């Protein structure tokens, strides 16, 4: 399959089951909502060392949020529920409780077959030293914790669902600037897709990895088959003209969400086309042995139905 001169490899991205959750953060204005959200999703690129993968999903207008203030929604993913809950509480406590005017609400209440309630502000309330106040509206419990700027308002819990992490594709280009430009285009397009985040810096990762290492203590190491400077000395996957490879990793609430994001991203990259040095799109996998989810690039790129906005994707 070739789109606009770009070869789509006959391969698949191999993804894993994760636990995911969404939190809505509001504040007096977007600036402060972002301050909180950026802090909360900072250092959350990979579960390998960050515990969670997190990112900002989208902005929300005042009439979309529970408390009628502007905000952003963030998604957070982890390999297990325990670590997700722990990270959520820690990050909420350090990044939202602390942030002037910020409040936190559940972002998942319905629309998924199996939703597990997990603590949002439930334990943070104890920061209130007994002065905290609980309120229940519409069947949901909220906590008001007195803080120096007024009150920190947080919902008691949010929803956690089984979700998918590690969707990806690789952009192979003739130069580093060209690869990056294609990635930027892809990320711009993918940001419009709900229910997904691309957790790496700017949405892009350059340090694709393989499983294992010559060093016994490392579980992963550089994906030498895709490192352009090693073309001559490894079992390379790169043709001679490829000078730079970059990867976009996608975590999504469902498999379908990742498929949509993948399609939007590859399409945007391909729109730049071969004339801009974009040569191939590939994906990372482990031969299909490790991850239960396989995103076949060619299937995705031929599936027109993915262009539709699926029902129930509103945040």
């Amino acid at each position, binding site marked *: 399959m070739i789109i606009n001169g770009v070869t789509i490899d006959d391969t698949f991205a191999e993804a894993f089951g994760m636990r995911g959750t969404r939190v809505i953060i509001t504040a007096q204005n977007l600036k402060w909502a972002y301050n909180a959200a950026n802090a909360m999703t900072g250092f959350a690129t990979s579960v390998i060392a960050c515990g969670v993968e997190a990112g900002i999903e989208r902005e929300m207008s005042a009439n979309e949020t529970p408390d009628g203030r502007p905000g952003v929604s963030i998604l957070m993913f982890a390999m297990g529920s325990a670590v997700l809950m722990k990270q959520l509480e820690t990050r909420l406590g350090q990044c939202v409780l602390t942030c002037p005017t910020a409040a936190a609400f559940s972002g998942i209440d319905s629309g998924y077959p199996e939703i597990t309630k997990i603590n949002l502000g439930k334990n943070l309330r104890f920061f209130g030293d*007994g002065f905290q*106040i609980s309120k229940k509206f519409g069947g949901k419990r909220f906590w008001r914790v007195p803080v120096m700027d007024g009150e920190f308002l947080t919902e008691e819990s949010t929803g956690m669902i089984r979700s998918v992490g590690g969707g990806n594709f690789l952009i192979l280009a003739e130069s580093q600037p060209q690869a990056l430009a294609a990635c930027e285009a892809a990320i711009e397009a993918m940001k419009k897709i709900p229910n997904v985040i691309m957790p790496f810096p700017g949405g892009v990762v350059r340090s694709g990895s393989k499983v294992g290492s010559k060093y016994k203590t490392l579980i992963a190491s550089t994906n030498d088959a895709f490192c352009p400077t090693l073309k001559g000395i490894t079992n390379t996957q790169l043709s001679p003209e490829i000078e730079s490879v970059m990867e976009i990793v996608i975590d999504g609430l469902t498999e379908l969400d990742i498929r949509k994001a993948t399609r939007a991203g590859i399409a945007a990259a391909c729109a730049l086309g071969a004339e801009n040095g974009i040569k191939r799109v590939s994906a990372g996998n482990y031969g299909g042995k490790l991850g239960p989810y396989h995103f076949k690039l060619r299937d995705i790129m031929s599936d027109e139905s993915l262009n539709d906005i699926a029902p129930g994707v509103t945040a």
Partner: protein
Amino acid sequence: MSALTFTLKSPAQQRIDLSPLTPDKLAGKSIADIGAILLQSGKTKLRTDEVFAISGDDSNGIVFDNANHKLDYIGSGMKSGKITINGGAGSYLGFQMKKGEIILNGDADAFAASGMADGFIHIKGNVGDFLGAAYFGERKGMKGGTVLVTGNAGERAGDQMRRGLILIEGNVGAYCASRMLAGTIGILGNTGEYLGYGMRRGTLLVTKTPDLHATIQDCGTHTLPFLNLMFKSFAALPSKFSKINQNRVQRYAGDLANDGKGEILVLQ
């Protein structure tokens, strides 16, 4: 199907306990069965069909017509369905109600919603003392659900209230929210003396600056984001409360005699 309707035949001298006549207890019963149910009144037990003319067949939606303040325990312990009362109701309306809906087109006597756990009660007239309070000896009053009073409420409304929402469009009598434990009471009208006396926790929302006793103290004027959530949750109510949209309040806290973590919010 038409609503199962009980029309009071004549005013009773002694209060009548109507706790057996709830949608869940009458489900599947014939009019004859229902007519034979015994209702305590004074020292005697009256057949339901002695007291009421009975018509209709949908026990999920019960109507009491021609009702008055001698009819106690309407909707007591009810678990489902809807009761509409035209006229008045006696004491213990919705006593320890678990779920469902009660609409009263008239006034209710004392202890309405006492020990209520969940559900919705709309009293379109006035209500007597001890709205949402606890049964004697119990330490917790209303534990959940929503009570909307279009008219005035008597004294001690929300005594020992533990959870839930009481909204009163009219005035309240003395000692409103006494020993309140949690939950929310909103009052659009005037409040009586000793508002929030012995209040431990919970929120009182009032529109007029009340006279407060010394152990409830001013905490200043504030903009509280949670009020947005609260007023949003009122939006669907058939009440003036649905029109409020304002989150700037004067906050008083107390009662310091009783640990003092309750609040009285006066809308500015």
